[in-house]
C-alpha cells in the first residue's frame, strides 16, 4: 500500500515536471499560512522575460497584477506588485499590495536582492475550504497602478463592485481583469491546492 502511494507520488511529480516543461515556463509555488491564507511565490523567470526586463530597466514602474479566480465558485481575489528602478539612487523601489490591502514598500539595493524579495510569498486569498482549485492570471503592465487605483476607488464608492473589508481584494483583482493598460505580457496557471 505504501509502495503504491509512493509510486503515485512519483508519477504525480513526474507529470507535474513534464507539464511544466511542456508549457516551457516555470510555475508559481504555493504555501498555506495560518488562517487558511494561500500565498504564491511567482517564478523568477518572469523578471527575466526579455520584454519585462526591458520595462524594468526603463526607469518607470512595472506593475504585476496577480488575480486568483476560484474555478468552482468564481470568487476572485489577488495582489499587486510594483517595481521601479531608480536610475540615480541605483536601487529598486518595490511595493506590494496583498489581498487584504496590506501594503509594503521597500528599497532594494541589487538585482540579486530583488530576486530574493521576489521569492517572498505573495498572499492571494483566505479560505476555509479543504481544497481549492484556482486559475492564476499574472499580467505585467507598464507604468504604476495609480490610475487604476483611481478607478478602484470610484468602483468602491459606486457600490457596483467593491465593498469594504473582504471585498477590497476582489476589487483589486477586478482592476486587473478589466482596466488593464496595454499589457507587456501575461501568464496563466491552473492549480489544485490541498490546504489540510
Amino acid at each position, binding site marked *: 500500500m505504501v509502495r503504491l502511494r509512493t509510486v503515485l507520488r512519483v508519477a504525480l511529480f513526474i507529470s507535474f515536471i513534464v507539464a511544466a516543461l511542456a508549457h516551457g515556463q516555470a510555475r508559481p509555488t504555493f504555501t498555506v499560512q495560518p488562517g487558511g491564507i494561500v500565498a504564491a511565490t511567482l517564478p523568477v523567470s518572469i523578471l527575466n522575460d526579455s520584454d519585462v526586463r526591458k520595462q524594468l530597466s526603463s526607469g518607470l*514602474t512595472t506593475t504585476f497584477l496577480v488575480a486568483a479566480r476560484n474555478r468552482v465558485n468564481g470568487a476572485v481575489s489577488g495582489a499587486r506588485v510594483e517595481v521601479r528602478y531608480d536610475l540615480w539612487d541605483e536601487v529598486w523601489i518595490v511595493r506590494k499590495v496583498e489581498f487584504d490591502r496590506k501594503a509594503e514598500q521597500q528599497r532594494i539595493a541589487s538585482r540579486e536582492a530583488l530576486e530574493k524579495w521576489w521569492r517572498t510569498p505573495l498572499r492571494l486569498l483566505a479560505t476555509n475550504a479543504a481544497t481549492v482549485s484556482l486559475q492564476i492570471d499574472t499580467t505585467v503592465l507598464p507604468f*504604476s497602478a495609480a490610475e487604476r487605483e483611481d478607478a478602484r476607488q470610484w468602483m468602491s464608492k459606486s457600490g457596483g463592485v467593491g465593498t469594504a473589508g473582504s471585498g477590497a481584494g476582489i476589487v483589486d483583482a477586478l482592476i486587473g481583469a478589466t482596466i488593464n493598460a496595454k499589457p507587456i505580457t501575461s501568464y496563466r496557471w491552473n492549480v489544485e491546492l490541498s490546504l489540510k
Partner: protein
Amino acid sequence: MTRTFLIALIALIALIVAVPASAQDVAEPAQDAVPAQFLIERIEVREAKRVTRDVIVAESRLREGEAYSETELSDAAARLSRLPFLLSADFALEKGSERGRHVLVITVAETKPFFYLLDIRPILSERSTEGQLDLDFSDRIGGDQEGVVGARWFVGRRGAFHAGLFTRNDRHEFTQDYTAAVIGYTQYDVLGTRAFATITLKRPLLDAPVSDEISPQLVVGIPVSMKQTVTLTYDETRFEGDIRVVEGSSFQRTSGERLVSARWSYNTTNHPFLPTRGTVVSVTPVVAWRDRVSLGLVEVTPDDRPVFGPVSFHTNSFGVSVDMARYFELSEQSSVSVGAEAGWGQIDERNSGITIPTVRNPTFAAAQVGYSHSLWTREQQKRGDSRFEYQLGYITRDRDFEQPFAFTLNDEYDELQASFAWVRRSSFGTIRLGVGYGW
C-alpha cells in the same frame, strides 16, 4: 415611453462614463508612499524615420525642463498611441546631465506615408425596404469621415502636408454629405503652444453637386490638458450644380455651406480608430449657414398654372451633439464598450419662392453596447490588428416640421440595430467591413 427609457439609459451611461473620468482628473495616487516625479530635462525620439521629433514632442504635450508624474507620462504615451501616423510609442527614462534629471526616450513605430481609412458598414433596416439604406449612426472610426485615402509627408520641424480623397457623413440634418479631393498642411506646436492648425483646400467630387471651385477648411486644436482638447473648425464648401432647362429656359443650380464648430473632448482611449480601453466624451456645438439657388415655384397664375424660376434658399442652423463611450479590456484580445450619443438642432429655412418658411427641430439619440475580439495575439498586435466587432444599439430620430399658417408634420422612428464587422489595421491604414440590421 421609449424616449423616457432612452433618456434614462443615456443618463446611466453618462454616469458610468463621466464619474471615473472626473475621478481620474482629481485623484492622486494616495496609497503611493512616495509618488514618483521625474524632472525631464530632454526628450529624445528614437526610430522615427518620417515623422519629426518636434511633432512627437508637441503631440505628447510634455515640455522639457518640467517634472511629471507617472500618470502624466502614461497619459502622454496614450495620447501618442492615438496619433494616426504612429503604431506604437514606448516610454523609458535615462539619466540626465545631473542628479535628479532625466532624459525621456520615446521609441516609436510609424505607419506608412500612404494611408487609407474605410468604414463600410451599411445597416439594412425595415425602412430600407422602402428604398432607404441607412448607414450606421455610430462611426467611431474617424469622426464624421467614412472614408479617407491619401498620403502624408512631414516637412520641416513641425509641418506635414496631406493629400487625398475623403468622404464626409456627419449625420447632421442641416449639412451636406459629400466626397472631395483635398490637399492641406498641418502646423504642429503653433507658437510653442502645443496647438495644431490644419488648412485644407477641397473640391467636392461625388455625392453632391460637383464643383470647379476650391473651398477652404481650417481646423485648430487647442490643448486644454493632457486629456482634453478644444477643436475649432471653420469649413466652407462651394458646390456647383447642373443646368436645368425648363420650357426653353435654362437655370444654373448652385449651393454652398459654411460651418463653424467648437468641439470639446476628453479622451483617454488607447487607439485612434479601434479603442479597447479608456473613455471618450465630446460636446460639439455647430452653427451652419447654407445658400442654394435652384429651380422652384415662383408664381401660380390665376388659371392655376405653376411658373418655375430661379429660387434662392437660405438656411440658418444650430445644433449640438454629445458623444460618450467607455471601453474595457477583458483580456489581451477581447474588450467591451458602452456608449451613447445625442443631438439636437434647429433649422430655420427661408427662401425667395412662394413656399412657406419652415422651422425644423431634428433630434437624435442612441445608446449602444459592443464587444470586440482580436484574432491576433498581443505580440502580433504591435504590427496592427485583425478583429471582429459586434454591436447592439438603439436609436431614435425625430424631425418636427413647423410651417406657419399651414401644418405641423412629425417624422419619428425608433430602431434597434445589430451589426457585425471585421476590422483590419495595418501600417497602411484601417478598414472596417460589416453589415447590420435594424428593426
